[in-house]
């Protein structure tokens, strides 16, 4: 998914990302009627930072501490056998667990839906949430599975010849979403 900086065009900049996350936080509070039992689980790497930012915003709105964790889906991927095994990222489930809670999965880009399928499998092994919802910063389409997001920062109709790259200050030093052309025909 690497994009050469030269031909990549920003579609969301820092302030847009902050605004979008504020809106999603409000939507979560509204739909969850106060977010009493909400647990946010970010999918590494950038989903975790987004989940932490969302949790901070939810805490401002509700005046309550929102449990936030991370869920690594590497070992649940359906394409494990097609690549060398990757290093595992951290799975951190908040102390009270997820049983009976409303789990909001958080990721940066929603694309084929396979990552979210793996995340649902991983959740299954960890507990039984009351419900699971999905929040993403960008939905770029091209779903391969019947999965959709409950909260979308920006719908970004793309072609398969394009790449979407999210950069966040915690990892990349700046906040931006870049849309670029794929360097080769390989996905």
């Amino acid at each position, binding site marked *: 998914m690497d994009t050469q900086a030269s031909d990549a065009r920003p579609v969301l900049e820092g302030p847009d990302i902050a605004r979008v996350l504020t809106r999603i936080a409000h939507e979560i509070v509204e739909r969850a009627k106060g977010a009493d039992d909400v647990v946010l689980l970010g999918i590494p790497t950038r989903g975790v930072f987004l989940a932490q930012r969302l949790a901070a915003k939810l805490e401002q709105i509700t005046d309550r501490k929102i449990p936030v964790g991370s869920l*690594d889906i590497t*070992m*649940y991927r359906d394409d*494990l*056998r*097609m*690549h*060398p*095994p*990757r*290093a*595992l*990222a*951290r*799975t951190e489930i908040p102390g009270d667990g997820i049983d009976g809670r409303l789990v909001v999965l958080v990721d940066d880009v929603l694309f084929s839906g396979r990552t979210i399928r793996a995340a649902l*499998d991983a959740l299954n*092994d*960890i*507990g039984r949430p009351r419900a699971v919802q999905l929040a993403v910063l960008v939905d770029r389409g091209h779903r391969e599975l019947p999965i959709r997001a409950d909260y979308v920062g920006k719908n970004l109709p793309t072609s398969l010849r394009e790449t979407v790259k999210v950069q966040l200050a915690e990892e990349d030093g700046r906040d931006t979403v870049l849309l670029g052309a794929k360097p080769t025909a390989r996905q």
Partner: protein
Amino acid sequence: MQRHLISAADLTRDDAVLILDTAEEMARVADRPIKKLPTLRGRTVVNLFFEDSTRTRISFEAAEKRLSADVINFTAKGSSVSKGESLKDTAQTLEAMGVDAVVIRHGASGAPYRLATSGWIDAAVINAGDGTHQHPTQALLDAFTMRRRLIGRDAGIGQDLAGKRVTLVGDVLHSRVARSNVDLLHTLGAEVTLVAPPTLVPVGVETWPCEVSYDLDSTLPKSDAVMMLRVQRERMNAAFFPTEREYSRRYGLDGERMARMPEHAIVMHPGPMVRGMEITAEVADSDRCTVVEQVANGVSIRMAVLYLLLGGNEPAVSHARTTEEK
């Protein structure tokens, strides 16, 4: 470590740290109510044990099952091996069954290497102890235990054991655990000292990357970890020391000796322990003794190795020092 894990000496520092970090994540699975991952679903692993070892076999078996692999246990006793079948024939039988990995324990040093390099079999080979040669997953679990205890569970991620001082005490001559540990600990940057009676020090030890001492008492105060080795009487074909009492007096670890170790230092033992000889019950049951932790860590390390060798379409670790591609 290529496609196989034959020797701790084959691992680069980065490979070893990757395995330790992966094991740390695997250990979290053990804390969950459902201790299972779908990662090796549909893969078949054979535990090929020509030598008895309940501890190592069940540790591998637990690791394989937690990763959802199909497990076949093969013990030489009562199999065609006792009727005279060769390693080659056994390997070809396994190959015909479509086995993806072989975990092999053999009394002869070099048997896993032969299995991996002879072309008899396509599967990944993991050495679970061969003769007096190597036991790489034991060395990895020991390093993992040291990193956790001496650096910390989270603080240790990405770290090696640079500057840590480790003392291995006892029957170095017959110990594959000692050989594997010296190799791996050196790779990870630790300083290793072997302490043993002169009769139990192997020929050629001066080429090993470690110090050798015959005096336990002077070594203890500067050790971060002291690993007691089992006196392997079953491998001894001569008298290597006068009496058990004499051995125990000079090389056994008791409470008084343990008190001379630094406050933070830990006592390790690969098991099974011979209480009263190499280690007293007082030491074995103390908080500083990590024997039980080492067993639990063994499952996490073996899960990590299996995942990194078998999880993808090629191993995750580099083609480091030897090149023995099939």
